[in-house]
């Protein structure tokens, strides 16, 4: 049996080799480069210790990108979960066409954030933008939506939330369908109000779904990249960058490979911390209930 198990383990060797070569090794390289001053292609690499990390900490544009990433991550997580749960409740209730709603709300997830970002340009341009057309019907003057950094961040957050809300809906829908209907029947017999049966039956039973949906969205939101690149490309003047788009800007456009590597490593560590805290927080909640 032991020999058989050892033979069995041979089956994961190809996958492990692939991951070691193309994930683990570049990961180690990225850590190494983060301690060097390097432009990304020359032979000239200079070891500078933690200088890149110090530079990162002093870089105002990095902190702007970090703040934006928090808005993208937490903002979309809150919006998507509230909307996702509402739509799951709607689609789960019986009415004609609920499956059509489910199908269509989930559909944009097939379209990449990049293409969706480009499509959104048709809505937010000053000249001829769909949004300006619509506010024009109400007699309002056209607005240059993406000219302002703060508004740009809010718009990107809203688009991201709208785009991926369907995934939340599906997670909650599965959770709702897993709640035995006898609980609701018993509550109805006891004359429990609708709100109370939601508060005391639905919500507690959904804790595992909430955990899954929140963590999945948070990690997704903190990695936002394509949406930013497509809609604003970080502009105006670096005001809408996410950490990921800032990394690619520093590496490929500004040719600061060392700094880019340092920021990338920072983002990885940050995401790990957030998801660990998130998981522990929910683990406690589950015990309490």
């Amino acid at each position, binding site marked *: 049996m032991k020999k058989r*198990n050892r033979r069995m383990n041979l089956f994961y060797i190809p996958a492990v080799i692939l991951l070691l070569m193309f994930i683990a090794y*570049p990961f180690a390289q990225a850590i190494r480069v983060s301690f060097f001053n390097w432009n990304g292609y020359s032979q000239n690499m200079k070891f500078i210790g933690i200088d890149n990390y110090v530079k990162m900490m002093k870089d105002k544009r990095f902190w702007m990108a970090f703040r934006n990433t928090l808005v993208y991550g937490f903002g979309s997580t809150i919006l998507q979960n509230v909307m996702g749960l509402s739509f799951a409740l709607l689609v789960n209730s019986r009415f004609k066409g609920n499956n059509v709603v489910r199908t269509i709300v989930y559909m944009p997830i097939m379209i990449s954030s990049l293409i969706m970002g480009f*499509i959104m340009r*048709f809505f937010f341009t000053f000249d001829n933008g*769909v949004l300006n057309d619509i506010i024009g019907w109400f007699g309002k003057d056209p607005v240059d939506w993406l000219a302002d950094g703060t508004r740009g961040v809010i718009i990107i957050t809203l688009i991201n939330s709208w785009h991926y809300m369907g995934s939340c809906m599906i997670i909650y829908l599965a959770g709702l369908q897993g709640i035995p209907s006898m609980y609701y029947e018993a509550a109805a017999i006891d004359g429990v109000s609708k709100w109370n049966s939601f508060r005391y039956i639905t919500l507690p039973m959904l804790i595992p779904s909430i955990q899954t949906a929140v963590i999945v969205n948070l990690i997704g939101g903190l990695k936002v*990249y394509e949406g930013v690149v497509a809609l604003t490309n970080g502009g105006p003047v670096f005001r809408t960058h996410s950490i990921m788009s800032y990394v690619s800007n520093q590496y490929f456009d500004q040719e600061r490979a060392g700094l880019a590597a340092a920021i990338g490593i920072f983002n990885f560590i940050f995401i790990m911390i957030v998801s660990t805290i998130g998981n522990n927080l929910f683990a406690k909640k589950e015990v309490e209930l």
Partner: protein
Amino acid sequence: MAGEKKKKERNTFINGTVWWKYVISFIAVIIYLLPIWVVFVVATKPLGDNSTRLMITSGLFFGNFEKALFRGNMLNAIKNSAIITLGVTVLEVVLSAFAAYPLSRNRSRLNKFVKAAILAVMMIPGLSIVVGVYMELVAFHMISTYWGIIIITAAFGLPMCIYLYSNFITTIPSSLDEAAAIDGAGAAQTFFRILLPQLKPVTVTVIIMRGIGAWNEYMYSLYILQKPAMWNVSVTIKSFFSENLSDWGAAAAAAFLAIVPVIVIYLFLQKYFIQGQLDSAVKG
């Protein structure tokens, strides 16, 4: 009796207020379909037509599609994306089905560690190690090759596939495996004869999910596929939207051509996508 009556009352209550569900549903459907409609409308407007993007005003004009497909390289991009998608899904299905077999059937301490390490890769945001990946591909002369992008895309997607496969294999009772082992079947024989034929459902999920992922790949394609002849769909569309920003029609046509295949596939295979969404929702 009393309970019955109450239940009936509740039902009429729900039916009585059902109209707002239709209102909300109608608004949601409009909001979710509007972008696709707008892309289509813009794609059918000739250059210089500045009428509203909400309505088709002067008939359908298909010149933009022709421009996108033949002059704008979209046809070649679709070919490249198809090759890359095929390569990524085949590589991922084979490697992850193989890898999941020992990881879910032989839970030694070593294998638990290997599995945890593989799943930890999912936490790495793709671009955070772009510096290392790019250096390596330059050293291996894999820039602007199919293999370069296929291997990197597959490597980042592999942990999720292994996760899906090993969860699925865990739900298959191991009694058949054991019976085969007693009859003298080796590890490989057990996998190919007993397990493999049962993996169809999860394989469909993996192919569909990762197929869409590979088709939409952009993050690394932009840097790996540098020669215009190698551009995939995403990079080509990016070139439309950055170079000739004045030509909104051609850009919209290119975007429309890229999203139509995935939406059609989605509409036909919806339940697999939704299953995939549920199976892949990992907690952390």
